[in-house]
């Protein structure tokens, strides 16, 4: 009713608004903490403009900060109020004396902290703002003024009865605490605005970085592609290299250590792509630390992928690596020309030495399955201990 805080919280929590209002009123009886909690929530919780437009009244909702934050705020506010009350009663001031001050503070806080936004809102919504909304605004303002008056008057009336020596000191303490309470949400809001400015600055810096990246790599590649338009293989190679580069920039891999088998394998795939103008699709499951046997395995993989890139005659080579704590398995496959193992002359080092020999020397297993016209599959397995 007063500020829409109760409705906002009710919407956020998905309960009936009267429960929340009831809770505030109940808290209000406990030393006035409900009122102050309400005031602080009001100042801190951003206004939900959607709800505002739909309902024509200011409904505050708890945004992305989440329910925990709002709960914390309520608890914090309650704590501060209870603390202030304790302090006041220790100083000899009755709770009755503080409560009116609290009410007056609430009213003042509401007017000072929200008036600007309410005005801005009225300007923004212009003609489309419906009359009931305006009436609600006036009603809210009146309520706030009444709050202040009630608070001040009752404090003044109560003040006559307080004539002890410590009263003055206690009153000063209360006023200071009150000012701090009223001012702190304001300071918080200033801080929030500064935060928004900083974010805007970061955004513009990011934009400059994007522009630089686009200029340095993407535009260069596009120029190269136009110049090589007559050579499809070269165009594909440039495009793929650029794609890889852009991907790495847009979706940086979780920084894998240099000893990562996975990272090294992706490196190998990129090299082969650049050299033979093919696409090497790498799928990895798990990861392993690159040791001597695995380095040999990596070289064998490079040989197998290169062979596929060079001889298969197809554009795509699939590489699958599965790494468990016990072993590393690499599978290289193309659907290309294939070949007959018996036809490979003995002096050709490729398959026999570079792939099979390398793996077997370290106690791993390697197999090459191929037939003319049926593609080629190379499977490498190496224990990791």
């Amino acid at each position, binding site marked *: 009713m007063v500020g829409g805080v109760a409705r906002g919280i009710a919407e956020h929590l998905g309960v009936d608004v009267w429960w929340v209002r009831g809770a505030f009123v109940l808290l209000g009886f406990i030393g006035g903490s409900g009122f102050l909690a309400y005031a602080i929530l009001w100042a801190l919780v951003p206004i939900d403009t959607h709800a505002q437009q739909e309902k024509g009244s200011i409904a505050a909702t708890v945004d992305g900060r989440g329910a925990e934050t709002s709960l914390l705020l309520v608890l914090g506010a309650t704590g501060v109020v209870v603390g202030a009350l304790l302090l006041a009663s220790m100083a000899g001031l009755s709770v009755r004396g503080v409560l009116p001050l609290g009410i007056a503070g609430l009213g003042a806080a509401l007017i000072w902290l929200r008036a600007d936004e309410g005005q801005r809102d009225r300007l923004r919504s212009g003609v489309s703002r419906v009359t009931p909304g305006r009436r609600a605004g006036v009603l809210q303002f009146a309520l706030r003024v009444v709050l202040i008056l009630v608070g001040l008057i009752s404090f003044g009336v109560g003040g006559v009865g307080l004539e002890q020596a410590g009263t003055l000191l206690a009153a000063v303490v209360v006023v200071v605490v009150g000012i701090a309470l009223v001012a702190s949400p304001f300071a918080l809001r200033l801080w929030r605005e500064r935060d928004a400015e900083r974010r805007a600055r970061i955004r513009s810096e990011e934009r400059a970085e994007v522009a630089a990246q686009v200029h340095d790599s993407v535009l260069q590649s596009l120029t190269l592609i136009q110049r090589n338009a007559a050579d499809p293989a070269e165009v594909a190679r440039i495009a793929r290299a650029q*794609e890889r580069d*852009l*991907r790495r920039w*847009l*979706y940086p*891999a*979780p920084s894998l250590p240099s000893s990562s088998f996975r990272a090294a394998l992706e490196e190998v795939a990129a090299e082969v792509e650049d050299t033979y103008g093919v*696409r090497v*699709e790498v*799928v*990895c*499951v*798990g990861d392993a630390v690159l040791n001597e046997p695995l380095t040999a395995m990596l070289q064998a993989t490079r040989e197998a992928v290169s062979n596929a890139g060079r001889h298969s005659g197809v554009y*795509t080579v*699939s590489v*699958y690596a*599965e790494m468990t704590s016990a072993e590393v398995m690499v*599978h290289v*496959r193309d659907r290309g020309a294939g070949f007959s193992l018996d036809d490979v002359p003995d002096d050709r080092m490729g398959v026999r030495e570079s792939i099979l020999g390398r793996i077997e020397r370290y106690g791993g297993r390697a197999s090459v399955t191929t037939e003319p016209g049926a593609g080629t599959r190379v499977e490498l397995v190496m224990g990791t201990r």
Partner: protein
Amino acid sequence: MMNAVTNPPSVVLVDDHRMFRTGVRTELGDQVRILGEAEDVDSAVAVILATQPEVVPLDVHLPGGNGPEVIRKVGEGAPDTRFLALSVSDAAEDVIATIRAEARGYVTKSISGAELADAVRQVAAGDAVFSPRLAGFALDAFAGSVEVGEIDEELDRLTPRERDVMRLIARGYTYREAASELFLSIKTIETHVSSVLRKLQLSNRNELARWASDRRLT
């Protein structure tokens, strides 16, 4: 089912790049019936509700929201429409979000027209479609031990057979090739893949979310 076999499946293309839509339209040719196209969330929802296509190849990133948004907004409005996530270079969490919004599969935009037509047919027939990367993702996400008492056990791990199937798909095998390799029928392979899809959609494993956020899936 008979319809899907005898008639080409009906399709609405959703992608914010006209060039890509035109390319897909040309490549798919008469293998599908294209009922309409859309380029953002709102137009996609409107076209899908109006034409009730069998399959929607759905770009994961769209202006005015993302793929999952389209699926959610269409909701019960097109009960027979199935979605196939299509992505060029997206982070894993986006693809997984689309899968978890009930898309029936995921393929990269780099696949050939023939492969895309196959994928659309499979989705139209009610099967799941996994790219090698998605299969690798499933294997990785469901690897390792599940903490005891952590949610539904059956949903949180793959059976050995499902693992075998995923391994072959991750290697770039088609369902047919996987079937002959494992001496299973294609229908059985499809059942296993659908089951893994269901687990990706429903499992509450914490690792699933964490995995997706710190790896890229393309």
